[in-house]
């Protein structure tokens, strides 16, 4: 039975069951679902399929192969670790959202057809925004609103592409796309979720505004689901090589300017996902292995980094470099665990990034893409510079600000320690990771040349940091990014579509009222109104002062009653005479 049960179902059931549990056991209850899903996943065999009829259509809820399995493992592991880190949470809404988010991510990973993929894709967007809104600050509410609008837009483009693809090929199966307009629309939808510049600004805008625990899930799922989708649908699509490399550099450049520690880390998600996108673009077996391995390692170390930054935020209520410093003595353990993540993302030997990132670079080396290799190495320099040196230096060392951090829940430490353990384990024993990759691995990361080159690169990056540390302190500024294009013109749009329209209505209303008033005046006493109008026109022509404008009184210029009687009488006389003449004929 468990042989073909989609793991996503477990999480979605969990999201329904969890609120029904007693309040005190919900944090523990949460952990049951990732464990159950993991057991199911371990029992899934590559090649399993599960199709469910829906209307006159076959939905492939489950399509298992080694690529989807590798992503499935790390998603479930991260959902579990996030649950431990957030064990202290008393917020059922967040826990339910996290379960739905993890579940829908798994749903996409195992979706065999594009309709199933699209449905889970949209659940992901909706459940993830709840993790941002759960912070319940005006800033997070607005950032979440921008996030969901961007994602719903991306989802719509994706749906358009899917329907177009269906009309063109008659197939909804999710496999490598052949090219053509439909697949470019789908590529747009995928790229938006992968945070490919210029479609990336939602990430650095919204992730730092999420809750302390929510941002850990955020950093793990959406972009990596997109990497999976790209690897499945667009492996070997060459423009992605350059796109990914530019991403890797782009994130690094913006990270220099960031003051908020979680925003700095968010820019490094973009940078790291750039490696994966480039690998997908290269598309060889080595490269797809590299993309998968890097996604796996990245989810863990980035989760760990966000856990560290979240612990600081939880303890001090601050997340800006300009407001922090000297926390090392108060939070040594958090610093230590954070540094494991930092060494991993920087690709230090013995840590997970070393064995995964180098696969991507090696795939580029094999294809003799010299410039790409150099640029990816440059991105590695920037990564160590920020996550490994700048952020920890200005947070835990740097200027003393005599902060009194609050104690951190034990669950947070446990979550961080477990994640750090995994990062280290993968770095020391890479076969653990290599064995679950889609293709057989012959690559050996620990060669003398590679270790020496990496150490040179990183140690001398350290010297560069040392030289320029004075320039690197946080600056309390906001950095413009492509979100400018929908944030700044929002004022313009507001003026154009709201203010100017309401002004137009105002003018029209006033004109209409004036017309109605003068019509009423004329019909109340045509002759009188004529007299008054002529008078005021004559005054105006003569250049005299207008007689004070009294409110129009229709009785003012009324003919005397006798005139009316006279007119009736006259009419009667005329009528009589006319009738008499007629009678005679």
């Amino acid at each position: 039975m468990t042989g073909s049960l989609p793991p996503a179902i477990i999480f979605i059931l969990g999201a329904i069951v969890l609120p029904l549990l007693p309040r005190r056991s919900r944090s523990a209850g949460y952990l049951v679902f990732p464990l159950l899903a993991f057991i199911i996943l371990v029992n899934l065999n590559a090649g399993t399929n599960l199709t469910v009829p829906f209307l006159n259509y076959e939905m492939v809820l489950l399509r298992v192969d080694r690529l989807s399995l590798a992503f499935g493992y790390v998603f479930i592991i991260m959902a579990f670790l996030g649950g431990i880190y957030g064990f202290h949470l008393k917020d059922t809404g967040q826990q339910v959202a996290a379960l739905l988010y993890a579940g829908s991510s798994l749903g996409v990973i195992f979706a065999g057809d594009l309709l199933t993929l699209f449905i889970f894709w949209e659940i992901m967007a909706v459940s993830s925004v709840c993790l941002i809104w759960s912070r319940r600050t005006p800033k997070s509410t607005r950032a979440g609103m921008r996030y969901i609008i961007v994602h719903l837009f991306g989802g719509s483009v994706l749906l358009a592409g899917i329907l177009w693809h269906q009309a063109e090929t008659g197939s909804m199966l999710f496999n490598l796309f052949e090219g053509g307009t439909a697949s470019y629309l789908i590529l747009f939808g995928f790229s938006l979720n992968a945070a490919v510049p210029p479609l990336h600004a939602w990430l650095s805008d919204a992730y730092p505004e999420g809750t302390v625990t929510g941002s850990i899930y955020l950093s793990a799922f959406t972009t990596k689901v997109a990497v999976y989708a790209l690897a499945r649908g667009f492996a070997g699509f060459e423009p992605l090589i350059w796109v990914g490399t530019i991403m890797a550099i782009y994130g690094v450049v913006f990270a220099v300017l960031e003051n908020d520690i979680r925003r700095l880390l968010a820019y490094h998600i973009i940078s790291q996902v750039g490696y994966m996108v480039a690998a997908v673009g290269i598309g060889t077996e080595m490269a797809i292995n590299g993309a998968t391995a890097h996604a796996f390692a990245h989810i863990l170390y980035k989760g760990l980094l966000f856990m560290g930054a979240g612990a600081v935020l939880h303890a001090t209520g601050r997340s800006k470099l300009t407001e922090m410093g000297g926390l090392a003595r108060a939070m040594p353990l958090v610093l230590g665990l954070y540094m494991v993540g930092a060494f991993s993302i920087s690709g230090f030997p013995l840590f997970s990034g070393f064995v995964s990132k180098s696969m991507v670079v090696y795939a580029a080396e094999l294809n003799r893409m010299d410039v790409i290799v150099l640029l990816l190495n440059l991105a590695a320099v920037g990564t160590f510079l920020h996550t490994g040196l700048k952020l920890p230096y200005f947070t835990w060392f740097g200027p003393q600000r005599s902060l009194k951090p609050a104690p951190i829940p034990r669950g947070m430490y446990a979550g961080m320690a477990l994640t750090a353990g995994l990062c280290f384990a993968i770095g020391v024993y890479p076969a653990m990771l290599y064995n679950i990759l889609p293709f057989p691995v012959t690559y050996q990361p620990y060669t003398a040349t590679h270790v020496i080159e990496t150490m040179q690169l990183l140690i001398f990056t350290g010297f560069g940091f040392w030289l320029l540390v004075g320039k690197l302190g946080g600056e309390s500024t906001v950095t413009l990014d492509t979100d400018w294009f929908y944030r700044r013109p929002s004022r313009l749009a507001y003026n154009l579509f709201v203010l100017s329209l309401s002004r137009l209505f105002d003018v029209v209303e006033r004109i209409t009222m004036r017309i109605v008033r003068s019509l009423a005046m004329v019909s109340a006493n045509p002759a009188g109104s004529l007299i008054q109008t002529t008078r005021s026109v004559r005054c105006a022509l003569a250049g005299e002062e207008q007689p004070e404008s009294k409110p129009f009184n229709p009785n003012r210029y009324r003919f005397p009653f006798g005139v009316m009687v006279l007119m009736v009488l006259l009419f009667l006389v005329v009528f009589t005479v006319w009738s008499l003449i007629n009678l005679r004929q």
Partner: protein
Amino acid sequence: MKRILLIALIILVPFVLLDLFFGGHGEFPWSGIPGFFALFGLIGCVAIILISKWLGHHWLQHKEDYYERNDGDR
């Protein structure tokens, strides 16, 4: 400043020696240069900082209330 460069230079020496023994398989244009990645790391790091900061100060960085100022009436 001078002290940092001096220490860097001292540390560079063993790496160059290591490169002479293990590196240089001649695959890439830079494979034969001992200590290439050390220089690449140092120069790359400095370049990233200077270029990004220049971009930031001349174009990208604005006061923190940049967006809020425009959201005033919402």
